């Protein structure tokens, strides 16, 4: 077999073994428990910081290892196998969406204050874009930030924010000029405890239960102007878009890991379970069904790796990335559904892992831009 699909090198595979060992020893045995408690220990952030997993692609001056995005891709794939979409999402949000914009666009002072402690896992970060009135239409966001001396006064609310309840800081999308459409958007880093910033209840979810998904409220919340990302007004839309490619790739990569895990789970089940005097895998229809799933998985993997290869090669592969996000996350839903079906009645029972994969997979085609929005982007790229 082609080593690492012609994408990963031997050292990436060595790193994969390390991540897999961490996942097997420190995450998987507790996945069910954390999902049930709808929370995972805060210490996992510091543990991941200690392991260097939160700063793989960030510079050494900020405590990262400057190893590049392919290492983070390996991490994302393997985290997809941990059995808890919520744990993967909470930790993943830290190193993909919350710190990505800080690294790319933050001032040095902002990087020292927020990026470095987030890489160490000491501060939990979140990215706040989606609002109760809508998330797909980023240019139409309504939360405002009015300049007042050396502060911004923020009013509005956000919802469905991963790490929202526990976050020490939120990279917040605000309108600094409400009349200017997407050109009026800016990103502002708001710290926990800032007067006027409050956090609502932790939301109950179909899947990703171990992650904390929150509502955030801002009422005349005064945020120092020094917290304006990069010190630039009106750049928010580009800053968000600048990290969207990686966010979408990260969701596709997580879906690959989840599919690998589901297929392993179902293979064990059909070898073990007997009906009509045979192990299930002795029925050709069962073998063929799994062969089809493995084929769909491989196709999704190839499209994702294609987009990833273009991305790490420095291309702004917006169409391919959107296609990969859509295909990988939707394939994962279908694979999960088929694997659940192959479990029979057991698939419907909470004590079997497959139901959690089925619930967790469903977020893929919604979060980080819906499949419909991916189609919008692809159509635009086609010139339609």
């Amino acid at each position, binding site marked *: 077999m082609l080593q690492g699909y012609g994408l990963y090198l*031997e*050292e990436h595979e*060595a*790193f994969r*073994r*390390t991540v897999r*060992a*961490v996942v097997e020893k420190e995450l998987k045995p507790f996945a069910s428990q954390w999902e049930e408690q709808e929370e995972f220990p805060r210490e996992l952030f510091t543990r991941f910081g200690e*392991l*260097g997993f939160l700063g*793989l692609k960030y510079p050494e001056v900020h405590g990262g*290892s400057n*190893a590049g995005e392919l*290492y983070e891709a390996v991490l994302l794939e393997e985290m997809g196998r941990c059995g808890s979409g919520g744990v993967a999402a909470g930790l993943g949000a830290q190193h993909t969406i919350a710190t990505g914009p800080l690294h790319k666009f933050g001032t040095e002072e902002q990087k020292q204050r927020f990026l470095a402690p987030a890489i160490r896992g000491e501060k939990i970060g979140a990215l706040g874009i989606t609002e109760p009135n809508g998330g797909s239409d980023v240019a139409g966001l309504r939360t405002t930030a009015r300049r007042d001396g050396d502060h911004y006064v923020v009013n509005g609310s956000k919802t469905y924010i991963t790490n929202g309840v526990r976050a020490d800081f939120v990279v917040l999308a605000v309108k600094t000029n409400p009349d200017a459409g997407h050109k009026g958007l800016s990103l502002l880093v708001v710290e926990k405890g800032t007067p006027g910033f409050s956090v609502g209840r932790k939301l109950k979810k179909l899947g990703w239960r171990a992650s904390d998904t929150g509502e955030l409220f801002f009422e005349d919340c005064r945020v120092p102007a020094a917290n304006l990302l990069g010190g630039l007004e009106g750049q928010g839309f580009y800053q968000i878009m600048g990290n969207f490619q990686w966010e979408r790739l990260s969701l596709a990569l997580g879906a690959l890991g989840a599919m690998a895990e589901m297929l392993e789970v179902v293979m064990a089940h059909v070898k073990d379970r007997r009906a009509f005097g045979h192990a299930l895998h002795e029925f050709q229809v069962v073998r063929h069904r799994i062969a089809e799933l493995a084929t769909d998985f491989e196709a999704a993997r190839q499209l994702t790796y294609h987009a990833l290869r273009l991305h790490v090669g420095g291309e702004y592969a917006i169409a391919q990335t959107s296609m990969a996000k859509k295909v990988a996350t939707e394939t994962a839903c279908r694979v999960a559904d088929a694997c659940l079906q192959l479990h029979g009645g057991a698939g419907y029972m909470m004590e079997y892992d497959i139901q959690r994969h089925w619930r967790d997979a469903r977020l893929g085609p919604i979060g980080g831009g819906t499949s419909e929005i991916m189609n919008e982007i692809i159509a635009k790229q086609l010139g339609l």
Partner: protein
Amino acid sequence: MKILVTAKRVEDPESKIKVKPDGSGIVQEGLKYKINPFDEIGVEEGLRLVAKHGGEVVVVSIGGKEVQEQLRHALAMGATRAVWVNHTGPLDQMGVAGLLQKVAEKEKPDLVILGKQAIDDDQNQVGQYLAEFLGWGQATFASKVESLESEQEKNKVPALQMGADNKSVRVVREVDNGLATLECALPAVVTTDLRLNLPRYASLPGIMKAKSKPIEELTPAKLSVDVTPKVQVLKMASPPPRKAGIKVPDVATLVDKLRNEAKVV
């Protein structure tokens, strides 16, 4: 101090092991491999000792080109350099010990650490042969008093204790009825048991650094060791599948069955 540690390539216990129909060995296609877990514990102990006392960990493996993967793993954990004895084909425990003897005589370590056994064929022989061949003291099944949840373990304190002038080593050994403590003059051979330590992960910086660490290639011929096996494997077979258990209604029946059917009490 200088510590020589072995790193055998073994089948990953997670993979499904199947015996070939003709009993000549196991089916290798599709198998995954890893470093023998007892050797990994040896590497960890070596790293802790040199962190405390200074020096280097040299890691050695015998096999084809593929064993470099296990050497790189040990280098990524923190070993300084590696010795690869390039050999394919049959090899018995005396052959391994003979090769390691020559490597040890060349490297002149203060301590050789091996796993008490390799998890592939569970022989538990090489460390003992090696100590005999070298004429050194040996302490097998090294363990420790503290638990794997203790503070010492968290702080990566070595379990093997060096004597005041670094001329001896104190080793706690796992024996049938508890723990025995030995003091052994250096140089010595130590083999690791399971509860000696929890090996570290290979960190990303470790993996990067390992790429440029040297691996020296040797061969049985270069070491002048005749590795013609004295032990011949005649046939391999899977153990018979376990029969299903039975449920007994009460303790009295259990005792009766243990006494009269199984004849174990």
